[in-house]
């Protein structure tokens, strides 16, 4: 057996009283893809930051190709042959591809020689790994998928032998993700070692050779991928059995609750984002809107929620609601029975500095039952908040804690508790499980399904295709402000939806009956 490409022995790191990494040891063979999964805050990012020289470990050793290596800063990590592709790209947006690639790895004090050398080398890398990018393109004009290629090229240009990718597919379309994995395959075949951090169990199962699971700062297991199953991994992540599939009975849709006709939305830059949409949501059904981020779904939710203006007609329980001017606000929307769990819960769903109990009444603070003469009935609100947090399993169950001190999943539960318990006719919910732990996802999905079973209408927007497919009773795909198709989740597959998400409406070649996506792969685990 050859020396491992990378080996960590007993890595520990604490931030104050929080033990982010505790005695972590892994060993990754060269020419393999090693997956690391774990929930939010499990310590994956800390571990990778240590490996990339961002943090110094309190204890432990790092061996690269069998040789003990100190990594005090990123420069040392690069010198040791480690390249990192961050979840949020570290690119200079108004620089060209070439400039971004040479930044920090210039050949000398003058740029011209560096640029021409890099141009040559880039051509070389493009041929070798199928990584084609126009070297003179400006980053901000590139698609997200191409920007990610630039990040990979940056690492390869620095002669990286070990490539770490942090949640690489979160921002990609299914087709782009496929391309990425083809590239990774090729890199693996060339002998590069790849560490893949992801929360998507499917990616782990399909592409990795070995996988490590992290929970609460500890490495709970390292297994060969072929010897494990998604259920087993999920259990290792959460520490208990997790129901990965959404358990729901067939929908029994009733009367139309929301009826959208010819909705158009122009954003504040004057760009039309929603280009004439017709959509109806009935009582007792979940309509899922699939699409790559930025194709008008957010604007649709914003207009429905009353914090953006649009034109067209929207009927709520048969009566028209104003889309601009007086009455086009959240207060009026809530009055007609629309609740909204916004996409960006930290900016639009909560006030992060305020305590949990205050956050449980925002938007409903005019409700007569929580007034006490001229003042608010703070005691009553507090008691109700405590009860809500109990019912929605918010941890820690401390209403006095500021919203920012809860984890993503628990923040979402606070918002959900507020919006669902108002008993709305229509629930708008955007990215319900973004940044939410796998254990909390199960709970949140169950709440959404319960609400549906009570005969409420639910409009769901998510960029997680798995989530759309497993929760929705009807799937509507948006591309460039238009609805490109509507599908029955039982009668479609990821490929078909992927084409619709890319604006291709002729899906006859891939139209399936769902068999291509076996049920256990419809699971998703945000971590």
């Amino acid at each position, binding site marked *: 057996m050859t020396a491992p490409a990378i080996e960590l022995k007993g890595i520990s790191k604490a931030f104050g009283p929080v033990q982010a990494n505790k005695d972590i040891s892994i060993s990754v063979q060269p020419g393999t893809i090693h997956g690391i999964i774990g929930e939010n805050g499990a310590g994956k*990012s*800390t571990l990778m*930051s240590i490996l*990339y*020289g*961002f943090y110094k470990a309190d204890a432990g050793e790092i061996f690269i190709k069998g040789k003990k290596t100190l990594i005090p*800063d*990123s*420069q*040392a*990590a*690069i010198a040791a042959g480690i390249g*990192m592709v*961050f979840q*949020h790209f*570290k*690119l*200079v*947006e*108004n*620089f060209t591809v070439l*400039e*971004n690639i*040479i*930044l*920090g*790895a*210039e050949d*000398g*004090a*003058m*740029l*011209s020689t*560096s640029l021409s050398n890099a141009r040559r080398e880039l051509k070389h890398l493009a041929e070798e790994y199928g990584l084609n990018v126009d070297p003179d393109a400006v980053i901000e004009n590139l698609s997200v998928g191409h920007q990610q290629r630039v990040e990979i090229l*940056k690492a390869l240009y620095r002669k990286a032998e070990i490539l770490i990718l942090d949640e690489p597919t979160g921002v990609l379309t299914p087709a782009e993700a496929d391309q990425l994995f083809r590239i990774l395959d090729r890199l693996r075949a060339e002998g590069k070692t790849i560490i893949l951090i992801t929360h998507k169990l499917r990616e782990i199962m399909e592409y990795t050779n070995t996988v490590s699971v992290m929970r609460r700062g500890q490495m709970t297991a390292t297994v060969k991928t072929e010897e494990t199953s998604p259920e087993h991994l999920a259990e290792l992540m959460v520490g208990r059995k997790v129901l990965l599939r959404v358990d729901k009975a067939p929908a029994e849709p009733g009367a139309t609750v929301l009826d959208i006709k010819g909705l158009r939305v122009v954003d504040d830059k004057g760009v039309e984002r929603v280009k004439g949409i017709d959509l109806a949501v009935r009582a007792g059904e979940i309509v899922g809107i699939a699409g790559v981020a930025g194709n008008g779904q957010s604007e649709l939710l914003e207009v429905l929620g009353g914090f953006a203006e649009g034109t067209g007609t929207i009927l709520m329980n048969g009566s028209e609601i104003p889309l601009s001017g007086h009455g086009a606000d959240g207060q009026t929307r809530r009055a007609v029975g629309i609740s909204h769990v916004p996409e960006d819960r930290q900016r639009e769903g909560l006030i992060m500095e305020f305590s949990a109990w205050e956050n449980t009444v925002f938007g409903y603070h005019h409700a007569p039952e929580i007034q006490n003469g001229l003042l608010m009935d703070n005691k009553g609100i507090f008691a109700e908040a405590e009860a809500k947090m109990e019912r929605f399993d918010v941890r820690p169950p401390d209403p006095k804690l500021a919203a920012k001190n809860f984890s993503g999943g628990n923040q979402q539960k606070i918002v959900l508790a507020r919006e669902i318990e108002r008993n709305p006719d229509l629930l708008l919910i955007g990215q319900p499980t973004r940044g939410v732990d796998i254990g909390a996802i199960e709970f949140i999905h169950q709440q959404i399904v319960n609400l549906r079973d009570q005969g409420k209408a639910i409009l769901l927007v998510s960029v997680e295709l798995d989530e759309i497919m497993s929760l929705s009773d009807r799937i509507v795909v948006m591309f460039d402000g238009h609805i490109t198709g509507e599908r029955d989740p039982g009668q479609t597959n990821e490929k078909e939806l992927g084409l619709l998400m890319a604006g291709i409406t002729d899906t006859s070649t891939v139209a399936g009956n769902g068999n291509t996506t076996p049920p256990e792969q419809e699971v998703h685990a945000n971590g």
Partner: protein
Amino acid sequence: MDFLTLLQVLDTSVRLATPLLLACLAGLYSERSGVVDIGLEGKMLAAAFFAAAFAFYSGNAWVGLLAGVGASIVLSIIHGLASVTFRGNQLISGVAINFLAAGMTVLAAQSWFRQGGRTPPLEGAARFNPIELPFAIGPNDAAAAERPLSQLIAEAGPFQQFYSELISGHSILVYLALLTVPATWWLLFRTRFGLRLRAVGENPAAVDTAGISVVWLRYGAILICGILCGVAGAYLSSALQAGFVKDMTAGRGFIALAALIFAKWRPVYALWACLLFGLFQALELRPDIIENLTGMKVQVQLLGALPYILTVVILAGFVGKAIPPRASGEPYIKER
């Protein structure tokens, strides 16, 4: 307006544009690296005082220049400590530096020279005197011909007029400031340092993950900013004028910032922007020209206010969209 008058106005414009240009380029380095510096005014003022004071004591303008640059660098480092090392609010730090300089210079001037907060007038080698370029008509020719210089120039051909009046006869610092423009362009767009500097002002995380120190890059930019402000201040008190007077920068640091926005953070545009502001200031000194051109009597005060009005107009965003370096004004905090 005849050709010679035009040349005279342009000549004055160049003189007045020089401190603006130096300060504007100083701000350019700082902001391109992501550090907003509204303390240009204070740094120039401090430099103006120390340059005048040391030039007076030593009788050597170059000693004054060094002292001015030194004072400006000290203030720059304070700004760097506050905004880079301690990640404080860059605007507050800049305002503090302006107040500090405004008070400190007058206090020091009064206690050293006891002339009501000014330095004694500078003479001879304590000032940066005009340089006469080869083949230009200058004071020496006038002395030799025993006739006034203005007469000699008026009799010369248009090219000689252009050369002698506009090109020749400035202090060395004017030429230095003009040379700083191509030098800055070259440094920013043709060298490794420039690439990194521009990158750190746009996305410091990209620089950090590439293994380069964000802190040192920003200090480098701040240092250059300090040097250029120092030269600008020294120019004010020992070249443009002969000695330091209270608040002699008169808002030039802020006009330079406006010019920087006008120039969209690009060095060559900065030159044109500063020359435009310089022209306004020059017209203020020649109300007769405006009167001849427009046929109306224009209040001198209104002319004096022109650069400031233009500043407001520019800052209000009427001159196209100017996109600042994306990370400017934000301290860099390493995220997990």
